[in-house]
C-alpha cells in the first residue's frame, strides 16, 4: 500500500474563494462540490500518481485563504516542495493580492520551491484577467503558469501531474551530487564550509557534506 518512491508536499495558497479546495477535490476525488464552505485551517489529502512507472505520493495541503488562519498556513510553507498560487480569473482583487502572497512565500518558503501560478475558474463567462496578463506575471516571477477549471475539470490533472514530474526530475538530479560527494579530504586541514547563501532570510536549512562547499538542503 505504501510503496512509493517519492513523497512530495504540495501546498495551495491564494485568496479565499478562488477555488483551492475545489481544485484539490477535483484532483483527489474527481468531485466538484458546489457550495463549498470556507476551509478552516488546513486540509490534508493524499494522492498517489504514477510518473514513468514510478509511484509518486503527493501530499496536498489545502490552506484556508482567510486572513485569520494565516499563522496556521504559513507554517506549512517551509517544508513544501511545490507551492500552487491560485487566483480567480473572474475576480481582479484575487489577482492584485498575488504580490502579497509572493512576499509571504519569499519570507517563509525555501528558495528552491517549485512555484506554480494558477488562474482558476476559466469556465466563467465574466473573465476579468486576460490570459496574457497572468502569463506575464508568472514569467516575471519565475513561475509556471496554467489556467484551470475545477468545475469542468480542465487542466486540473495536468497541473498536478506536471508538478509531480518536475519534482521527480529535481529530486533525481539532486540525488546525484549527494552520493558522489563523499570523497575524502586528505591534506589534513580543516576545510571551511562556505555558506552558499541562497536561502533567504532567517531560514537556512543546511546539510553539510564534508569537503564540499555547499549546502542548502533545498538547493544542493
Amino acid at each position, binding site marked *: 500500500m505504501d510503496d512509493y518512491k517519492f513523497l512530495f508536499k504540495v501546498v495551495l495558497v491564494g485568496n479565499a474563494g478562488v477555488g483551492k479546495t475545489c481544485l484539490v477535490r477535483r484532483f483527489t476525488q474527481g468531485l466538484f462540490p458546489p457550495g463549498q*464552505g470556507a476551509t478552516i485551517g488546513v486540509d490534508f489529502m493524499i494522492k498517489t500518481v504514477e510518473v514513468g512507472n514510478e509511484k509518486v505520493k503527493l501530499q496536498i495541503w489545502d490552506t484556508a485563504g482567510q486572513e485569520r488562519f494565516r499563522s496556521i498556513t504559513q507554517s506549512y510553507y517551509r517544508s513544501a516542495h511545490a507551492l500552487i498560487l491560485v487566483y480567480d480569473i473572474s475576480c481582479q482583487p484575487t489577482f492584485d493580492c498575488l504580490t502579497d502572497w509572493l512576499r509571504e512565500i519569499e519570507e517563509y518558503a525555501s528558495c528552491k520551491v517549485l512555484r506554480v501560478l494558477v488562474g482558476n475558474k476559466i469556465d466563467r463567462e465574466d473573465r476579468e484577467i486576460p490570459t496574457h496578463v497572468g502569463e506575464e506575471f508568472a514569467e516575471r516571477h519565475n513561475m509556471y503558469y496554467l489556467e484551470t477549471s475545477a468545475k469542468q475539470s480542465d487542466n486540473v490533472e495536468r497541473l498536478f501531474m506536471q508538478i509531480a514530474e518536475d519534482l521527480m526530475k529535481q529530486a533525481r538530479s539532486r540525488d546525484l551530487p549527494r552520493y558522489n560527494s563523499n570523497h575524502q579530504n586528505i591534506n589534513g586541514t*580543516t576545510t571551511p564550509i562556505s555558506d552558499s547563501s541562497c536561502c533567504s532570510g*532567517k531560514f537556512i*536549512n543546511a546539510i553539510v557534506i564534508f569537503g564540499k562547499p555547499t549546502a542548502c538542503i533545498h538547493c544542493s
Partner: protein
Amino acid sequence: MDSNISKYADMQKAIQMELEKLETEEATLIEGLNNMLNQKVFLEDKVKGLSKLIPSLKVIKNEAQDLVNTVNDISDSSEKISSKIRSLDKARSRVDECQLRVSDLIDLEICSQGVQAAILDSDYEKGAAHVHRFLSMDQSLLKRTANDMDNVSNMLKSVRTLQDAASQLRAIVEHKFNEAVTTEDLLSIERFFKIFPLLGMHEEGIKEFCTYLRSKVCLVADKNLKSAINTPVSDKRYSVIYADTLTLLFEGLARVLDKHQPLIETYYGPGRLLSAISILQKECDVQTKRVLLEWARSRQIHKKVQQINELSRMSSSSSFSKMEKIDPKDLDILIGEITLMHYRTELYIKFIQRKVTSDADVGIPNQDERTKVVQSLEKLIKNSELSQCKHELLSHYLRLEQYYMEESVAKAVAMDTLEPGQQTSSMVDDTFFIIRKCIRRSISTGSLDGICVIINNACRVLESDFGEILRQRLRQGYPSGYLDLTQAYNVLHTSIQQGRLQSGDTEQSRTAFVVALNNADSSTDYIDALCEYVMKEIGQSVPNLNANEKGKLESCLSGLSSVTTNLKDLIEYGTQQLRSTAIKPRINPWVDAFLNANHHLTEDELSAYEAGESFVQTLIMNLETLLSSFKDILSSSNYDLFTQVLTAEVTNRFEKVIKKCTFNRLGGLVLDKEVRSLAGYMTANTSWSVRDKFARLTQMATVLNLEQVAEIHDYWGSHDGALTWRLTPSELRSVLSLRTDFKVEDIRRLKL
C-alpha cells in the same frame, strides 16, 4: 388312355386333398361349437345379472340430479348472503364515520362552548386543550360534514368560535408568557411554555422560551464580566480571570441546556433541540465576543501581537534590536490563559454537537432529515461568532507561542554554559525543555491544527536557530594543536618569550567543538523522545483522531525526523573534521615509525626485538593516550564513531606502510604478531566491532608470515580451510613479493 388315366389320378389326388381340407374344417367347426356350448351357461348367468342391475341405475341417476339442484340452490343463497354482509360493512363504516363526525361535532360544540368559558376563567390549559382537540380534528372531514348538514350555520359558528378562540388564546398565551418573563414569574413561564405546543405553536414556544433563557444567560454573563473587570491584580485568579469568565459562560449555557432539554422533550417532543440551541447560540456569540474584547483590552493583546510582528520583520532586516523586546517569560501566563480559553471553547462546541446529534438520533427517524439537521448544526457552528473567536484565539496563541519559542531558544543558546564534567552543554537541555513545553501547551489547546503548527515551528527553530549554532561551531573545526612534545615545547617556548600563550584558546575551541558534536548527538535522542511523547500525549488529550487527522499529524512529526537526519549529517561532518585534524596528523607518524624498524631479522635480533619495546607496543600506547583523551569527553555514540574512524585510519595507513617495506621470514613473523596484538587491543578497547576493519591487514600479515610461497594454497581456494579474501589476487601477489626470500618466479607461477 394313359393320359386319361393320369388325368384321373390327378383328379383323384385333387379330390382327396379337397376332402382332407373339408375334414379339418369340420373338426375345427365342431371344436368351436363345443366351446360355445361350454360357455353358454356362463354367459347366460352374466346376462341375467346385468338385467337385474338396470332398475337400481335408474334410481342413482335421479338422486344425482337432486344433488345438483341442491348445490345450485346453496350457491345462490350464499351469494345473496355475502352481498348483504358487504352492504352491512359499508353501513357500519358509515356509522363509524358518522359517530366520529358526531363526536367531533359534539366536541366542537363542547369545545366552542368550553373554550370561551375557559378563557374567561383564565383556565388556559383547559382552553388550550379544547383548541388542541379542535386542531386534532380532521379539518377536511369537518368541511364535508358541514356540506352534508342542514344546520350548517350552527356548526360553522362553532368552528369560527374555536378558530377565534385559538388565535385569541395564542395572543393571550404569548402575552401572558411575556408578562411572566417581565415579572420573572418562573411558574407562569413554565406554565405557558407548556401551553404553546397545544396551540400548535412549537417553534414559537421554543423561540419565546429560549429568548427568555437567553436574557437570563445575558444577565449572569453581564455580572460575571463586570466582576472579572473589577478583579484586583492581587487576586490569585487574576491571570486567568477571563478564561474563568468564559468558562462560567459556557458552563452556564450547558447547565441551561441540560436543565431544559427534558422539558422541551416532554412537551414538544424530541428532535427540537437544534432550534433551541440556535437561539441560545446567539447569546453565546454576543457574550463570548464581549469577554474577548474585554480580555484583549485588558491584556493588550493586539499591541503585543503587533509588537511581535514588527520584531520579526525587524529581525529579518538588518536594523535589529532597536526595539524593545518583550521578554518571553512575560508572555508565559498570557499564553497559558489563551490555551485555556481556546480549550474551553473547543469543549463547549463539542458539547453542543454531542447534544444535538444524540437528540436528532432519538427524535428524527428519517435518515435524510437527520443528516439535514446535522448539516445545519455544522453550518450554525461554522458561521457562529464563537467559532470566529476561537480561530482568533488560536491565531493569537500561535503568534505568541512562536515568538516565545524562538526567543526562549535564542536565550538558551546565548546563555549556553558547560558544567565541568558534562559532555553536553546547557543549551540542549534548555532548548528541548522549551520545545517540549511549547508542544505540550499546544496540545492543551485541543486544536490539532494548533499542535501541527507548533510542531512545524519547532522543526524550523531546531533546524535554523539551534542547529545552525551547532553547525557554526563544528565549522570552526577541531584545532589540531601540536603534533608532538618537541613541537609543543618549541611553540610554548616562543609564546612565553613573546608574552602570549595560546594554548588556552586552542583548548577552548577544542572543547567547543567536542561539545557541539555531543550536543548534536544528544539532540537526536531528545527528538526521538519528543516524537514519542507527542504521540502519547495526543493519544490522551485529543483522542478519536480520524485517519486524515492522523496523517496530518504524522506528516508534521516527520519534519522532526528530518531534523534528526540533518543532525546526523552534522555529526558525520564533525567526525570527518576530527579525522582530518585530530586523528590523521597523530596517527601517521606513529604508524610511519614502522618504516624505521628492521624487518630482516636474524634469530638473535628477533629475541632482542621481543625483549625490548616493540613498534606495536609504542603504537598501542600512543593510541591508548589518544583514545583515552576522547573517551570521557565524547558521548558514547560519538566515541563509537570516533573509534571507527580511528581504526579505519590506522589500518589504512598501516597497509600503506607495509607496502613500502620488505620482509624476511622472521620479519613477517614479527609483523603477524604485531598485527594480531594491535587488532586484539582495538577489539578489546572499543565497543565497535573492529575485526572487520582489520581483515585486510590480518590477511596481509598472514601472507607475509608464510614459510613458502606454495603454502598460500592452504588459505586460498574453495576448500574448507580457505579464507574469505579481502585481497585481490594481484594484491596478494604484490604482498608476497615483499618477502625478499620468495622467488619472483614462484609467485608468478601461483594459480590464483
